[in-house]
Structures are given as C-alpha cells and as structure tokens.
C-alpha cells in the first residue's frame, strides 16, 4: 500500500507532463499542425544535436538556482515571489565587483563576485522578510513590489550611473566588462578532449555543477540536520513547533535568507558565465520560471534538477519547432503554462487521494480486530 502510494507520488509529475502535452496538442491541432510531428521535431532537434544538448544544459543552469530559491521559501510556508528582483540585484552586485576591482587573482575575485551576488540579494530580501516577521505584511505583495523597484533601479544603474563610457554613442547600454578573473570558467576546455566543440559547448560553465552540488547539499541539509527537522516542524505545524521551543520566526528568516542568497546567483550564468557585462537586455523572468520549477519539483531540492532540465528542454525545443516545424514559439510557452496547470491539478488530485487512502489505513489500528490486538502488543 505504502509503496503503491510512493510510486504514484513519483509518477505524478510524469502524468502531469503527459497531460500538459495532450492539452497542448489541441492547440497545435487548432493551428493546423500534427502534434505528433511537432513533438517529434522537438525531440529530434533537442536530443540528436550536440549544440542543442549543451544549450539545454546552459538554459537549465539558472533555472536550478531559481527553482531552489523558490523551493526553499516554500519549505517554510513563505512565498518568495521576489526571486526575480533578488537576482537582478545579485547580478548587478556581481557585475559591480567584477568590473570595478582589477588585478585580483581569480581564486579571490570570482568568489568575491559570487558572495556579492548572494549578499546583495539577501540585503534586498531583508525588507520583505523583516516586514513579514515583524509586522505581518504579506510577503507575496511586498516581494512583487520589490521586483518592480529592482527592475527600475537596475535600468537606472546601468543606464545612468555605471554605463560603460566607451559605449556612449552606440546603441549598447551596458556596464563595463567584468575582469577576466571574475568570470566563471567555461567547461569547454574539459569537454574538448571528449571531442565536444562549438559555441554552445563553450557557453556551459562551472555554475552547472555548482548548482547541482548545492541542490544535493540542500537535500541532505533539509533531511538530516537538526535545522532541517525544525524546518519541517515549522512548516507542518508552527504552533506545535512554537510549543516545542522552536523559534518559528528565526527558522523562517534563515530559510528566506538562504532562498534569497541562492536567488542572487540566478543571473550569473549569463552575466559572469557568458556575456561578461550586464546590459539592459539581460535575461529576465527566470525568477518566475523558478516558481514553476519548484512547483514541478514539489519543493524537493533534488527534484529541482530534472524540473529545471524539462524547462530548459522546452525552451530549446521552442526554437527547434519554430524553425523546423514552423510552429510559433509561443505554442511552447502555452505548453509550459499548460504543464504547470496540469501539475497543479494533478497534485491536488493526488494529495486528496493519498489523504483518503491514509485515512482508510488510519482506521486499521483503530478498528482493532483480534489479529491486530495480537500483533499490537
């Protein structure tokens, strides 16, 4: 019984994805294409080309950080919708440290840039979390507002304060170049001996393994440590946790800061790993995608990795079907949204099912038969 429920729980994301694809098929049919063809093109384009595979991994990297950031806040019943703004600030802090300091060795400069990104995002997140814990202001509202502020502030800083003077007069609005010592090393040199080359291979950088390691460490941290235990108690019954002497607010604060710190790293894949500068067109919306990733992963840090991969896959696939199947890219966006909807529905259904099953099982020890009596002692 228990194993059956477990299998079912694990199968839910897969079922949700299939359901999402099925729903998207209706739309693909509606624009006069064969959904099977479209999906086939997507799979072939994504999985049979080296550049596609590495592009997927590159797109997956920031989504791992974003998914982890959102999942961590969800774990203590907080909704960090502010990952978006936090990574803008993190990206800016990293760029600032990257271009304003010169002559530092890479072993110092890069960690400093990463710390600046995490630290900046954490400071940014202080406002909503302190308002929440001290004054009860709902973090969804405050983080959304902070996102607007972050977005406007960033444009101002890039455009008016830190614009690269050498670019004035050109249409490029960006910061000065980040020092080489602050760039995240590419994995290209490691992959070259395996016969893997190309610009998409070069793009892949050290942040991908870093993200995976952080996910694994977090999974262990949450399941095995005392703090992880307190996190569960606070999430499942804050009143009982309080009665047990667990400081709810402190646990929530700690997790929110952790969430923000990881959020600060979201933008670095592009800024420090690829472009080497921060411009006004840098990738946006990753924080919101992180919400979907966390949802699909059920807030499990390890689940974030495949969930981020799926979104990376869909993103790359969008380019493929647009080009080869001549299906607009927007269809993929719709597919993503449908999958998320399907997941919400599927999880709700599953949770209900598990609950009724548990209740039924719960009646077993209660309705003690002679057999249960004999084994119960």
């Amino acid at each position: 019984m228990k194993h059956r429920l477990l299998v079912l729980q694990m199968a839910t994301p897969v079922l949700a994805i299939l359901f999402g694809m099925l729903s998207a098929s209706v739309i693909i049919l509606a624009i006069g294409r064969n959904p099977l063809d479209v999906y086939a093109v997507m799979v072939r384009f994504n999985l049979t080309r080296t550049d596609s595979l590495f592009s997927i991994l590159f797109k997956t990297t920031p989504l791992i950080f974003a998914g982890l950031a959102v999942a961590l806040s969800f774990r203590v019943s907080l909704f960090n919708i502010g990952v978006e703004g936090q990574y803008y600030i993190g990206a800016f802090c990293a760029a600032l440290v990257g271009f304003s300091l010169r002559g530092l060795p890479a072993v110092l400069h890069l960690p400093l840039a990463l710390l600046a990104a995490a630290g900046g995002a954490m400071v940014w997140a202080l406002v909503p979390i302190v308002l929440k814990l001290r004054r009860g202001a709902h973090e969804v509202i405050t983080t959304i507002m902070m996102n607007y502020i972050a977005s406007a502030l960033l444009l101002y800083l890039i455009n008016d304060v830190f614009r690269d003077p050498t670019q004035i007069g050109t249409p490029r609005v960006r910061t000065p170049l980040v020092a080489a010592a602050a760039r995240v090393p590419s994995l290209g040199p490691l992959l070259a001996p395996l016969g893997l080359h190309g610009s998409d291979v070069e793009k892949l950088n050290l942040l991908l393994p870093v993200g995976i390691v952080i996910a694994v460490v977090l999974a262990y941290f949450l399941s095995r440590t005392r703090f992880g235990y307190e996190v569960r108690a606070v999430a499942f019954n804050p009143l009982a946790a309080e009665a047990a002497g667990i400081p709810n607010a402190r646990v929530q604060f700690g997790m929110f800061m952790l969430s923000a710190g990881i959020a600060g790293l979201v933008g670095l894949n592009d800024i420090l790993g690829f472009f080497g500068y921060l411009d006004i067109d840098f990738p946006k919306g990753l924080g919101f995608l992180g919400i979907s990733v966390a949802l699909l992963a059920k807030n499990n840090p390890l689940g974030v990795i495949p969930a981020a991969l799926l979104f990376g896959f869909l993103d790359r696939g969008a380019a493929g079907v647009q080009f080869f199947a001549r299906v607009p890219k927007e269809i993929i966006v719709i597919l993503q949204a449908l999958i998320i909807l399907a997941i919400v529905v599927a999880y709700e259904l599953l949770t209900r099912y598990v609950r009724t099953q548990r209740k039924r099982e719960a009646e077993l020890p209660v309705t003690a038969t002679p057999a249960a009596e004999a084994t119960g002692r």
Partner: protein
Amino acid sequence: MSDLFIELQGITKRFPGVVANDRVDLTVHRGEIHAIVGENGAGKSTLMRVLYGLYQPDEGTIAVKGHAVTIESPRRALELGIGMVHQHFMLIPVFTVAENVILGSEPVWGFGRLRMREAQQRVAELCRQYGFVLDPTAEVGSLSVGEQQRVEIIKVLYRGAELLILDEPTAVLVPQEVDELFNNLRQLVAQGKTVIFISHKLDEVLAISDQITVLRRGRVVGTVPAAGTTKAQLAEMMVGRPVLVELAHPPVEPGPVRLDVRQVRVPGRGTRPAVRDVSFAVGAGEIYGIAGVEGNGQTELVEALVGLRRITGGQLLIDGRDVTHATARAIRLMGVAHIPEDRHRRGIALPMAVWENMILGHHTREEFTHGALLNRPGIRGFVRRRVGDYDIRVADVEAPVLALSGGNQQKVVVAREFSFAPQVLVAAQPTRGLDIGATEFVMRQLLAARSSGMAVLLVSANLEEILSLSDRVGVMYGGALVAEFARGEVSAAELGLYMTGAGRTGEARAG
C-alpha cells in the same frame, strides 16, 4: 415500546485487514434515545456511517419504518428522515444562524434571491417548537460551542430529519452545556423525534438514554436498558474486563514549591486581561487541579506558564528562579513538560513521522544529535523504547502520526513529555477525546508523576477527573482564581457553582 424506526440486521463492514462491523444487529424504536457506546475503534462511527449512507455494508440489511432500504448517500438518508450531527461542526462563522441553517437548501425567489425573512422565521419556529434558545440573526462566530451545536441540530431538523444521530456530542461541551443539550434532546423525543447518541462517557449515557447498545471490536456485546444498569457493568461490557472506576490516590507528602505563580496577569483580546492576578503554588508530589468553564482564562494561563504567551504583570517562578519573561525553550529546558489542551494544534505535527513527533522539543538533546546532524540510530532506540513502554499501537514509526488513533496520538505526546525527568508538568485537558482505556492510562501516568515528585498542574473541564486526581483544586472564573479547596473539601456540584461565578461570595480563599 412503540413502533420500530430502524432495524439493522447482520451488518458487516470490512476494510482491508479488519472487520469494522461484524454482524451487527441494532433496533431503534421511535421516540427513544438510543446510546451506542464502545471504545475508540469499536465500530460505532463505521456503523453510523453505514446508517447515514457514507459507507455501504458488505453484508446485512437495513430496514427503516419496516421497509428494507438501501442507503446509498446522505441525501437518501435524509429522505428517509435520518440526519447526522457531526462531532466537528460544519458552520461558517461569518454567517448568521439562519444563513448557516439554510445553507445547501436555500429557499429562493426568482433569479436566486434568498428568502431570508422566511428562513429566519422558520428557524425561529423550530427553536420555539423544541425549546432551543437561539437567535436566528446572530452571527455564528460569536456563539459559544454549545450554541453552535444547537445550530447544527437545527440544521438537521430543518432538513426534515426524524432520527438524529449525534456523534460524540458532549466531547466539546462543558457541564452546563451538556445539561442544556440533554434538555434539548428530551424535548426532541417528547415531540416524537428519535435520537441515536454515540459516546464513551458512561455517566452521560446512563443519564440520557433509554436503551444502550455496547460495541466491542466491531461486535454487539449487548443492548441493555439504561435503568438498572451501573457504570461498572457498562465499562466491563465495553472493555471486556473489570475497570477500576476509582483510582487509588495514596497520600504523598508535598515537597518544596516547584511552580510558583504570583499575581500573574496575561492580556487577552482587546483591553480585558484574559488572566487577572492569579496566584497559586504547586509543590513537588502534588497535583493542583484547575476547574472552570472553558474560556475563563485557563488556555491563556497555561500558555503563559509554558512561555507561549506574554505575562504583563506578576511573577512566575520555577524552582525558585524567575522565568516571567523566559522563552518557551528556556522554560522547557528547566524541566517543564507541557501536555497541550489541543494536541492537533500545539502537540503534534500531523504530517510528520511518529519518530519526529516523539522528539519534538527534545530534538536538540545531545543523545539525538551529532553536531548539526540528527543522530538517527540514537533517536530510533529512544523511540522504540517509548513505543514499547507506553504501548503505542504503531506498525511503523516512519508513518505520519496522523495515521494513529486519537488515543495513540495522545500517548505519543504523553510519552514525549514524560521523557527526560521533567520537574513540573502542565497538563491541559489531558484525557480529552480519549476512550476509557486510554483515559485510565493517562490518569495513572499523572498519579505516577505525582508519586515520583513532579509538581503537576492539571487543567480540565472534566470535574470528575479533577476531583479524583487533585490534591488541591482551584476554580477559574472570568480570568481570576475565585476559589481554592483542599482535596475532599468540595463536591462537583459546588465546583459547578463557583465555575459559573455564583459561589463567589462564599468564604473562598481566593489566590
């Protein structure tokens, strides 16, 4: 007896691995109050769910008013005149009484406009007819628990029920409210309604019922008339062995004061303090009982004593140390154990594993940690011992605690709080919702704690429990301690007077 209303024959209901009801026969006559008693898990609720159409029996027949029927849904049950008053109220607090009553079968004009006036009149009529004191226009959220229960009963009557099934209706009520409920029930049967009353409180069952059917492990042990049956006989039928109704209360010489409460004041909602200048002291080896109608400051007092609520005046001392402004954690570390009044709210986290709940609050102890990590083998050993010592019926300690019965959940709390030699025990409603066996168990544990030199504060709405366990009894009314008695100095009836504020002018030694 008059005519037959319900006749169940050979009802069998199986769940995977168990037979919840085993060839149950039950006959209920019109106009009687028929009690169904049994321990938790004896099959009372399953049987009632079969009758109310929530479960389908695997075997057996149901006849209503002489006709064989199949009750496939609660809707069908209502058509047959069978209504259920649930233990947990299903009311919307911001709606008025009348709005709650009509919910689901609203009378409407065209375009869905509510016939509110008419609904209010009908509710008022029902109240008049059955002698219910209830204002149809009152907001349900502002009503007492007893009044909310009346709303639930009216709801069922409004839908035309002739037979009312009440599932543990007194579990949430205080003595005065129980009396009122019983008056209401007598009114109902006097006017031809029939009542099935599910309970495991034997005094109440004997007081209100005409017939009593006892279930044990899914089978009917027997049906007896309430008149001429004793509590001891019923208890033995339920449990299957003679039960001690009275527990031995050996004299214990009280030791030094462990819990010292001096003029403690706790703010309530609004400007009125919830606890006003309460003073008492509990010594080692002593049980101090606090009686009172719920909502007179006991909850706030208990929470203040264990550090969960701010104390704005007075002093709280534990073993002579001032802990007035200490945190819950600090108080716990001083050896204060706390059995909360509502285990689901303050005691356990339902989705967490049994083992996780078993160490809640003790999880920072050295034997459970390896630095920042949890010491799983150490915890497992501890949990296994506790599960054995307290006879907690659980197949797998990795299972979420919500899979346990209420009695076993309470045992998890009790086992945890009695661990690591606490010096002071604050027990609030420790036997609420437990069956006879589990109640007896918890009461024995409290007495054992007393013998071992713990200072025990027992807050309970159950006067019998207070009187049989306590060395001294205080009465709370309106946030103040209005009287204090030594053991044997006071009867339940007298306590009841003080609890309603009536006895305040006596020579009570307040504080």
